[in-house]
């Protein structure tokens, strides 16, 4: 069995800082991590490999530094790593990213399963997985919470939707986007780390995967970020100082206010 996992390197978002002058994100000194959801996707791939045999390939599109993300995947137990890195890819929106990844996946055929995270914590769009599936005409299940069964031609999954857990049976090859419930990511082992350090990460550019360089990257992206603004807070309401007038009077003023607005 051959499973391909799409992983993205993202800035560690819990401490994203903004430059107060320019309103842009401060990138210096910000640590890069593998998108948390993609670690769950990797875990799922490795578990399936343990059950059924075969190999797992991790692929990523990003700057050369994203090689670190690939090595992390290798140290967890992936067999091969492929980094799609080229100036032509820079600035890709989700459409262009989907094009690059789908072209790369096509070159890696044959495969049985392609996995992606439900979304990346930097863009928060969740569009790339469905985009890749669509371009490759692969059957798609998003928001997968568990794989119930994997047989020769089919995979049965559960996905978490608004109404509950829905089960679907997809023919292979297909694409799944994985949520957190698919499995808690394992830590790299020491041996894994040593192996990953020695192993070659394959680098590929537009000509290798046969995509038109003009139709990817910033130039090939239909969407453009045209402005970044810091949110402005709009309301300026009345303030009641309970410390001064006492909790009882403050509560009475609150109740008056609610009555004025027909909320009581």
């Amino acid at each position, binding site marked *: 069995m051959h499973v391909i996992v799409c992983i993205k390197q993202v800035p560690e978002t819990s401490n994203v800082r903004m430059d107060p002058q320019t309103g842009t994100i401060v990138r210096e000194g910000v640590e890069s991590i593998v998108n948390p959801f993609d670690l769950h996707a990797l875990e799922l791939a490795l578990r399936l490999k343990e059950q059924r045999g075969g190999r797992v390939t991790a692929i990523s599109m990003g700057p050369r530094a994203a090689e670190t993300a690939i090595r992390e995947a290798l140290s967890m137990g992936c067999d091969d790593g492929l980094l799609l890195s080229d100036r032509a890819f820079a600035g890709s929106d989700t459409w262009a990213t989907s094009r690059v990844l789908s072209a790369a996946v096509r070159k890696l055929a044959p495969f049985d399963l392609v996995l992606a995270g439900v979304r990346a914590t930097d863009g928060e769009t969740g569009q790339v997985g469905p985009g890749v599936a*669509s371009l490759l005409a692969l*059957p798609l299940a998003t928001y997968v919470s568990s794989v119930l069964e994997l047989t020769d031609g089919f995979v049965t999954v559960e996905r978490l939707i608004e109404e509950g857990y829905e089960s679907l049976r997809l023919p292979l090859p297909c694409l799944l986007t994985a949520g957190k419930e698919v499995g808690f990511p394992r830590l790299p082992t020491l041996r894994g780390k040593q192996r990953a350090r020695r192993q070659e990460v394959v680098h590929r550019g537009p000509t290798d995967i046969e995509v038109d360089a003009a139709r990817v990257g910033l130039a090939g992206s239909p969407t453009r970020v045209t402005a970044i603004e810091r949110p402005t807070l709009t309301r300026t309401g009345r303030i009641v100082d309970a410390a001064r007038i006492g909790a009882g009077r403050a509560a009475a003023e609150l109740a008056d*206010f609610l009555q004025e607005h027909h909320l009581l």
Partner: protein
Amino acid sequence: MAVWTLAEQAGGRLKRVSYELLTWGRHLADGLEASGRPAELCAIALGARLREEDLEELTERGADRVCVAESPGLDPFLVEAHAGVLEMLVRWGRPEIIIAAATTAGRTLMPYLAVRLETGLTADCTRLEIDPDTGHLVQIRPAAGGKVLATIMTADHRPQMATVRPHAAQPPPRRPAAPALGACITRVDVPDGLAESPVEWLALRAEQAAGAAVQDAERVVAGGRGLKRAEGFGVVRNLARALEAAVGASREAVDRGWIGYPHQVGLSGKTVTPRLYVAVGISGAIQHLAGMQTADVIVAVNEDADAQIFQVADLGVVGDLFEVVPALVEEVERRRAAREGDG
């Protein structure tokens, strides 16, 4: 020129968000009109057998046209079938803009379709406008963990596609449509083989998300880290009971395990648009505001006069929540009892 909204259904009934989308759609159609580009607002409804009254309700809530395609393959939702039919409709109708809900279905269908149409898509928009000069769709969404708002344009590709979060807008008011308007419901035949998916739908294990209660509530009382410990939520629950409100929470309160994730309001939780939102011991981080800013009336209780929540509050009480909130519960109950005594 047309603005399309994608209605969502479950078991033949349209979901509330289908009507909310008309609020967004009408705003855009008006914007196009104002920029000299008259546009029709069209709701697209795909399903197996949709309830007639719901389709009429779309016209009563402002759709100029409702375009209905029905086929057994369109319920339950499978992305391949929906995308097949929708792609056909788009190539035929050439809409200027398509907006859908940022639900699990919308967030699957829209990207699947967008790459096929070779056009852009912006997820989770919090504001949509029409540029008065160019007539382009201006898409605004939080980025960088909610710290900034990014404006995104799809200037050179059509249709322009965007998803918006459920509950970020109220449905437009319902106006009984003139009988002649019934004609605006157009049915489209689905060619054989189009509404098909290689995926087999097996079953749904229904589990009503507890969070639905927060999203659908007219009133929400939410607590944050200021409650100090899990038991502190008692204060919030008492007020929620007195005001007949649902209980919400900040991420800090959820991360500390004081209350379940389904109650979380904000960027990585629920978006709510209640008539009343009471924030108790919540500082008003931008990520929290992202989920509740559109409430009609916002009340905040916080001991820190500089807390950011006061910048969005219509009424702010500076004080100790453990004194103010119980006093308010008492006051509310006293007034209610007095009123009932009168009547």
